[in-house]
């Protein structure tokens, strides 16, 4: 599916629209310096850039795990930035997130972690008694099959390997029936082979459910292999936005600085 073109050709309505996003953790030091970017309703976008350049901050502002200092983030027809309470939770339900360190609840079973994806739709009393709807339970088992972890349904999450945990993390995000999937360095803690599997899984699930996937990552080769569109950030600004093929050495030097690391 086509990614959003860089120039103003007729574009599909953006699923996510970031407008002038600014984030200062410390007054005066901008980690995000007025980011404006649109994301189409499909396709996998990889955000690359040096550590500390705000890639993770950008993603976390979308689901308000980090509070933006200025700017607007339009998702599902409304600005997410001023939301609070119930409307914020409703917006978060629509956004699935995958984390670098999986962030599974280790003492709970794999099934319970998956069903945690439905907590935005489940009352606390029912959640406590683990009385999720049959539909949720059936979907959970189906997703578990799809990611190849059916045998682990009742194992504690901390009994799984890193790659297995990340698959559970992705399944948990998909359980939300989200309209957007965010992934914050999902492969940084995984070996090369597992990283490829995880990227493939996210791309395939994104296509299957027709939702856009935005992934932060360090591995440029992996990004080129799986992304439909690459966004390069440096110093809190976007310095590249286009096709993976356009990532030549010159562009990479602009993004990361320095030459010796380039082959």
């Amino acid at each position, binding site marked *: 599916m086509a990614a959003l073109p860089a120039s103003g050709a007729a574009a599909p309505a953006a699923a996510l629209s970031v407008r002038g996003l600014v984030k200062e953790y410390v007054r005066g030091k901008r980690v995000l310096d007025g980011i404006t970017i649109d994301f189409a309703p499909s396709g996998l976008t990889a955000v690359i850039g040096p550590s500390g350049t705000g890639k993770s901050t950008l993603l976390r502002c979308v689901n308000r795990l980090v509070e933006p200092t200025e700017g607007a983030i339009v998702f599902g027809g409304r600005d997410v930035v001023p939301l609070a309470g119930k409307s914020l939770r409703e917006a978060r339900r629509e*956004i699935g*997130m995958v*984390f670098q360190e999986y962030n599974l609840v280790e*003492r*709970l079973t794999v099934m319970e972690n998956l069903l*945690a994806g439905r*907590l*935005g739709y489940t009352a606390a009393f029912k*959640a406590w008694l683990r009385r999720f709807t049959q539909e949720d339970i059936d979907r959970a088992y189906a997703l578990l099959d799809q990611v190849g972890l059916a045998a682990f349904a009742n194992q504690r999450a901390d009994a799984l390997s890193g790659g297995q945990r990340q698959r559970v993390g992705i399944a948990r995000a998909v359980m939300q029936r989200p309209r957007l999937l965010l992934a914050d360095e999902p492969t940084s803690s995984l070996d090369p082979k597992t990283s490829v599997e995880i990227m493939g899984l996210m791309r395939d699930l994104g296509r299957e459910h027709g939702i856009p996937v935005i992934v932060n990552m360090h591995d440029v080769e992996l990004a080129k292999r799986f992304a439909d569109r690459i966004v390069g950030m440096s110093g809190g600004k976007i310095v590249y936005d286009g096709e993976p093929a356009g990532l030549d050495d010159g562009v990479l030097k602009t993004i990361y600085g320095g030459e010796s690391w380039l082959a």
Partner: protein
Amino acid sequence: MNTATRRLAVQPNWWARAGWILLAAYVVYALGRLDFSWERFVTGLDNGARFIGRMIPPVIAQPDSLGKGLLESMEIALLASFLGIVISLPVGLLAARNLMPVWATWPARAVIALARSFHPVIVAIIFVKAVGFGALAGIGALVVASIGFIGKLFAEAIEEISLKQVEAVRATGASFMNVILFGVLPQVFGRFIGFATYQLDSNLRNSTMVGIVGAGGIGGTLFSAFQRFDYDFVAAILLSIIAMIMVGEVLATWVRGVFLEKGKVSDE
């Protein structure tokens, strides 16, 4: 460093040495002030031997009183533990500074600090004055003790959890209660069970004491036997208390076995 100091592996800390010497001097001085003499010690040994002689053999002089007292102590301990655990859960949660705003943590921590300030017997005296003699006062006193203990440790356990797991649950759009249920409690449940069973054990021991000030249980029976110089009955009561505490140990171990995995002392 010159060659002299280089000879030693660890440099001498002269401040620490001075501190130890001062401490030793104070101990000797304090012992002198407390009328701690050798003659008293020897006389005491002799008295002690005669005292133990009167306790052996133990005689259950009043079986009804003994049975009632023991039963009441156990009831006080169990009820106080149950109520204390139920109250400690929300109080401990409110006191966790990594989850709660300041207007919740300050009052909760104040309540816990207050509950910990006094020995259970002193609290029992207050309750006896407030609600009268009997088991209700004892239960009240031990509930306060439980809140102080479990509440403080529970709050500290919550402050040590991984917030990454909590963040992930929050990102799904879960409500506050759901975040607590799925993100916080699973991480601290094991330790909570450990604290709860420890407090059950502690309450069992304390329940034998609150009776001395009239708050119910075997303590009252023990104290009146003592005042009547019925030392052989005192011995019987003491032995039965030991038996009760051991039963309580077994109970606590069983509870831990049910909630935690086999062979674990705590869920680490």
